[in-house]
């Protein structure tokens, strides 16, 4: 099976070092289980994705592209030439706009279906089909069978990336590929303003929007919610304790109510 893995020029969130984004490393792992994948990167510098050679890829095709240019036309042209059966990408590539739109634009340009957030890919029962498991969160899956070729993005719950093997990395090759179509004009610089990231407090569920300052503080520091309404039963009868526990579990919705479901 021919598999292409789209690679982007990632940055380590803490050190800022050029690294392979974790999701793309996970994509390589999925791809390596199916065949011999080829990496594809469009950008000014291939060194940014050389890490991928140590994490399961033996070959990366690199389309040189000026900084800020739209990668979709050249990637689409390269993929048309490669004609892979499966194109894997992270759910949000780094280094460009980082809006996660490139796989969708590519799928549209190639006329292929796109399956988002997959955690596993396997060949389908019928020839030419693929079975993709989409994550629905919390371990639940949606199993989609598609007639290939198909574009898929990878979800963080996919198997963890392979370790980096220095010995394999030095044997891997990065092949420069001439851009088949002229790079699209650099997208009009969007009116975005960049500044250092500032972490914002997450909304606390059930926090009072009004309420006193003390209540909001309690909510923000986690003293509220469960703990504030916390109940303490000391030496209850075990049966009473059991009733309390079941009532509580049903109250927060992790345990189904006792009434029989019409059709489980």
């Amino acid at each position, binding site marked *: 099976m021919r598999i292409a893995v789209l690679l982007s020029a990632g*940055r380590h969130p803490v050190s*800022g070092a050029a690294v392979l984004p974790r999701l793309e490393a996970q994509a390589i792992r999925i791809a390596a289980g199916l065949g011999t994948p080829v990496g594809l990167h469009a950008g000014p510098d291939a060194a940014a994705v050389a890490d991928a050679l140590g994490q399961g890829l033996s070959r990366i095709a690199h389309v040189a592209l000026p900084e800020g240019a739209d990668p979709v036309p050249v990637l689409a042209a390269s993929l048309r030439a490669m004609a892979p059966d499966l194109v894997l990408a992270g759910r949000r590539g*780094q280094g460009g*706009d980082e*809006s*996660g*739109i490139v796989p*969708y*634009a590519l*799928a*549209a340009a190639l006329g292929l*279906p*796109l399956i*988002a*957030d997959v955690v596993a890919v396997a060949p389908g029962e019928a020839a030419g089909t693929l079975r993709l498991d*989409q994550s*629905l*969160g*919390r*371990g*639940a899956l*949606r*199993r989609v*069978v*598609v*007639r290939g070729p*198909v574009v898929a993005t990878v*979800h963080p*719950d996919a198997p963890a990336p392979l370790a980096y093997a220095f010995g394999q990395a030095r044997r891997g090759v990065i092949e420069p590929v001439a851009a088949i179509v002229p790079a699209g004009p650099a997208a009009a610089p*969007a*009116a*975005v*303003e*960049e*500044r250092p*990231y500032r972490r*914002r407090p997450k*909304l606390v569920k059930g926090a009072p*929007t009004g309420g006193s300052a003390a209540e909001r503080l309690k909510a923000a520091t986690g003293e509220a*919610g*469960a*703990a504030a309404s*916390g*109940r*303490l*039963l*000391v*030496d209850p009868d*075990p*049966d009473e*304790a059991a009733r*309390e*526990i079941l009532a*509580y*579990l049903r109250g*927060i919705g*992790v345990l*189904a109510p006792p*009434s*029989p479901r019409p059709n489980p």
Partner: protein
Amino acid sequence: MTRPRRDPRAERAAIQVAAGPRPRFDRSARAAGGRPRRDPRPERAGQRVPGASRPRYDLSQVVPAQALRGEVAVAAEARQPAAAKILVVEDPAFLVAVVPDAAGGRLSPHDRQVLGAARVLAGREGGILVVSVGPCEACGPAGADRHLALGEVGTDPDERAARVAAALAVASPRHVLFPESLDGGDLARRVAVRMGVPLFDNAEVVAAGGLVRPARGRRVEQRAAPGLLASVAPDAVADYAGPPREARPLAHDLPPAAEPASTILSVARIPADPATVPLSLAEFVASAGNGIRDLDTFRQLVAALHATPGASRVLCDAGLMPRHTQVGASGTVLAATCYFALGISGAPQHLQGVAGCEHVVAVNTDLHAAMIERAGLAIVQDAQAVMPALLRLLAREKQEAGEGS
């Protein structure tokens, strides 16, 4: 300014005690208006832990004084708000569309937050249009002025995107917001590609002046004026908190989309099996610690509760539970909704593993265990005795349910 004006004179007259030459007032009976007065003495009494020879208090719970006096029903009745008036925007200056996930026809908490964000963009003049695929309940209380329910579509997400894009083209809103959830983010990008407009994704700040999102691995943030399409990060924007709105249903006469035949052959949903799901993904984890001696009963209980089994390090070290079930800093860090700790005292490393759990239920013999402190429902009792009781209760419920049907 909607609060009724208070009349202190009348309030005083109402609580005056009739007898006696001197005017006397019964302030404890003041139930109407404002917060109920606190009475620390009965509250303290309510916190007293029964059973101990020395008085011991559990300061983590506050029992309202009224509850102790059996007045809670009265108070609740008195505070019953009048049916809120439905706010109507007759002729909105512009529309802000929200495309919720609305799985199963109900708004998710994330959808509600997106509606809250939409209200920020719509302000007073704008109207919020919910565009749902399939039915969607209770859009009005969540802040929708208009509601456009599109017909159900098949399994192909592209078909759904085509339908939404067509509806948006007709409604021509000023902004469209999606939840940046698994399906919502997917739909947003499909719609963006279809409409050929950029998407400002994963906005963590939504204000009329601009949207902010993280970029470059959260090293920078980007701010831009709200464009046509944007998606909103979870737990970043507060829900709509104003009075309910009308969510006036709109009729639509969209032509059925002529999409090419889908290459998706089949779609099947595989629910997570709590027994095998990785611990880090599990929603409900029941965990055994040193206080559990009978692990067979524990396993039965885990199966009966449809929970994922976990364990403390001591049990894993002793080989009583497999290593992959270990919860804590050196085992798995959980993201569960509920953590049910049986016989676990709560070592610091263990508590680090459950820091992300929303609810904690603990059963432990030690009143002063850290896990009891952390728990939303804490039961100071031998877990070894509670487990069979739980199993009995579950079995009885099952039996009754079986008879009932």
